[in-house]
């Protein structure tokens, strides 16, 4: 046992370990070939080191010659796998150089192996040399065979390939890799070859150090290769982190993700998505199963949205309700994108769902509030007018009454104070005129509000009112159907006032159906072009209808059938419609329920008088 018998096996062991590690990586990694070539090279170096140790410790010439002849096999494999490594790892360099170098080299080794006398190199004598530590080792005297020059040429070709590949890689910007791997390989190739020549020519007397030089090659290769592995590991970690972040984000935003494989009709849904739909983690989901979860009234809308996505750009966006097993209703907003195959057939659809129940709820409440405001607005404008009117009128009325009562007292005096009476009568007349003036002023105020006129499209106006009352209607379980004719002519008028009419009629209809059974609360709003000159808006309900006896009085001010009504709604409607040179009429429908028809002139309205 001496240091030689320790160092060479250690070297071999190190190489084998590296080989094993990279074989393992090769079968777990996408880029398999560089790792395999590397492992092969490492194993070859381990074997070379074994041959080397054997040569150093052999003092019998024949045996030495045999070992030397076989030693070229791992060296050939080493050269070939290093070339393969550079080829696959760099992806650059002239391929023919590599193939020529490796082919020539393998040919030399093969020839050396099979020829009766080695054609590359032959040991003709051995002698023992002592080196540091007092260890004796064998040094051969070598004669180069005729193929030696060919073998040298093949190695030069391989080195040229590596140099070429490295230069190209350098130019591509991967300078470190080119310098370390390419430079390392060329340097250690030259070093091993040069040292072997020096030993064989007897110029230096050291053991062969081919395997050490090759170890340098292996380290240079392994260093960069493991950098790749490290990078992959870092990437994997980042990917995991970003997955965790997106999970967190999804969780924070209460987003659920899903993917629908159409060919297999399988829907994958994230845990969040399943929680949103109230579906357990392991329940398999398909399209029919999904549709079943959707509220029956929303199924058609969802189906339409999906069909539109398939027919169009593939983008899918909709909102629908889901009935949870607990009976609770949940509003869901869904967004998705379709992936098509080459024939534009949908293959996959994936996207996100979000629970928007709270948002919907507050939207509904907002709409309700708005419609209550519209309600209150109607009442409060009237209330304010009434208060102002009362105050302005009560002043002269109070004076007239007091004057009259004073006059009564003066008349009782004996003799009656006639002068006072004359003054009183003059004052009463004055106050009476004052009261008339108040009323005249109030009238002109009311009239002035009606003068805003512009061309109005009736359908959008009706739709606006519909939006205003739809939440209120849903709450009262009333269905409002819009049957709007296309190609209506515009009318001339005041948007707010005409809306007020439609709103009043719809609110009246809703109130009329308060006592109807829930399934039978229906309002139909229609628009028609009744003639070239007239546009008609009809509001029909399914309520009890109007008592024929009160039909003629319906539009009278202060006429009401409601316990808390002011009796102004229809009166105001009529006033507004007439100000637009239109007509309003009420009727009972043959099938039951009341209908109100507002006819407004189309085009330029006649000037209001």
């Amino acid at each position, binding site marked *: 046992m001496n240091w030689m018998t320790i160092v060479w096996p250690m070297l071999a062991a190190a190489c084998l370990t590296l080989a094993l590690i990279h074989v393992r990586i090769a079968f777990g990694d996408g880029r398999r070939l560089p790792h395999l070539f590397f492992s092969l090279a490492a194993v070859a170096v381990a074997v070379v080191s074994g041959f080397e140790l054997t040569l150093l410790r052999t003092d019998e010439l024949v045996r030495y010659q045999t070992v030397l002849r076989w030693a070229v096999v791992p060296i050939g494999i080493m050269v070939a796998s290093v070339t393969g490594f550079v080829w696959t790892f760099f992806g650059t360099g002239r391929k023919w150089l590599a193939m020529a170098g490796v082919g020539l080299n393998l040919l030399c080794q093969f020839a050396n192996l099979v020829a009766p006398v080695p054609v590359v190199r032959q040991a003709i004598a051995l002698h023992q040399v002592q080196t540091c530590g007092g260890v004796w080792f064998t040094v051969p005297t070598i004669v180069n065979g005729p193929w030696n020059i060919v073998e040298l040429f093949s190695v030069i070709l391989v080195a040229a390939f590596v140099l070429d590949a490295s230069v190209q890689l350098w130019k591509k910007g991967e300078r470190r890799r080119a310098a370390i791997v390419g430079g390392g390989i060329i340097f250690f190739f030259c070093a091993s070859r040069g040292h072997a020549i020096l030993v064989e020519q007897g110029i230096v007397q050291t053991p062969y150090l081919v395997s050490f030089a090759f170890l340098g090659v292996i380290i240079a290769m392994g260093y960069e290769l493991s950098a790749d592995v490290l990078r992959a590991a870092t990437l994997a970690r980042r990917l995991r982190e970003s997955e965790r972040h997106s999970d967190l984000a999804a969780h924070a935003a209460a987003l659920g993700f899903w993917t629908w494989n159409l060919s297999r009709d399988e829907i994958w849904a994230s845990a969040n998505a399943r929680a949103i739909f109230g579906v357990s983690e392991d329940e398999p989901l398909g399209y029919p199963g999904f549709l079943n979860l959707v509220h029956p009234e929303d199924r058609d809308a969802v189906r339409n949205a999906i069909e539109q996505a398939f027919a169009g750009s593939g983008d899918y966006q909709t909102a629908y309700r889901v009935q949870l097993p607990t009976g609770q209703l949940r509003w869901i907003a869904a967004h998705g994108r379709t992936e098509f195959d080459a024939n534009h057939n949908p293959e996959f659809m994936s996207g996100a769902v979000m629970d928007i129940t709270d948002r919907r709820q507050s939207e509904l409440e907002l709409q309700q509030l708005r419609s209550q405001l519209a309600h209150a607005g109607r009442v409060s404008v009237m209330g304010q007018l009434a*208060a102002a009117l*009362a105050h*302005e009128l009560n002043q002269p*009325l*109070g004076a007239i009454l007091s004057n009259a009562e004073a006059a009564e007292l003066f008349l009782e005096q004996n003799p009656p104070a006639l002068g006072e009476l004359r003054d*009183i009568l003059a004052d009463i007349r004055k106050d009476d005129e004052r009261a008339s003036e108040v009323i005249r002023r109030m009238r002109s105020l009311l009239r002035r509000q009606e003068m805003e006129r512009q061309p109005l499209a009736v359908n959008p106006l009706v739709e606006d009112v519909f939006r205003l009352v739809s939440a209120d209607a849903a709450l009262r379980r009333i269905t409002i159907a819009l049957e709007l004719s296309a190609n209506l002519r515009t009318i001339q008028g005041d948007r707010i006032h005409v809306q007020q009419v439609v709103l009043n009629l719809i609110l009246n209809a809703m109130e009329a159906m308060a006592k109807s059974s829930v399934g039978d609360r229906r309002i139909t709003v229609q628009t028609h072009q009744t003639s070239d000159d007239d546009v008609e808006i009809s509001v029909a309900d399914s309520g009890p209808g109007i008592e024929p006896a009160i039909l003629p009085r319906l539009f009278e001010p202060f006429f009401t059938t409601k316990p808390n009504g002011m009796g102004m709604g229809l009166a105001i409607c009529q006033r507004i419609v007439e100000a637009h040179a239109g007509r309003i009429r009420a009727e009972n429908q043959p099938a039951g329920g009341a209908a109100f028809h507002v006819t407004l002139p189309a085009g330029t309205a006649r000037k209001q008088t």
Partner: protein
Amino acid sequence: MNSGQPTIYVVDDDASFLQAVTRLLRAGGYALRTFTSAHGFLNNPPPDSPGCVIVDLHMPDMNGLELQDALARTGAPLPVIFLTGHGDIPTSVDAMRKGAEDFLTKPMKREKLFDAVQRALARNARERQAYEKNRALRARYETLTPREREVLAQIVTGKLNKQIAADLDTTERTIKAHRANLTAKLQMQSVAELVRLAQALKLPTS
């Protein structure tokens, strides 16, 4: 104490209405003075004599409620009757809570108005009587020395002479002397009378 003919003060910015109401009240036999603004009324404070105020709730310079507050700060407030063209419930509640005699909506009937005026004058007479009595009591109280007032403040809390002497750091004999003096000046014998006096004059007690 002036107990002559009561005066009715009418404040309304509506000249025509003011004129009519003036005629009516005069025909009803009342003496009155009229103002077309709250400031006009407050700048000519009524003399210390019986009466009441009829005021319109809505006036441009100062509304009736503010006038009522200003009146309440004087020693012997005159009762207030509010008139309004359009009465709303919160305002009337506010006015009544502050001691308004009545709250009438224009146009008001003669009987209602005369009724309110009669009640206001009766109330004013009662209040004036109470106020006069108070004033006599206060005049007598003013004759006490500061030390006697201190002793009185102690007596009305129900303390014995001995305790008062200890509290005021003097002898029981001195307290007895003070007590004799102050009851003589106030013309009162019992502690109960003294307590009523302290309450009526809103005296501080120790």
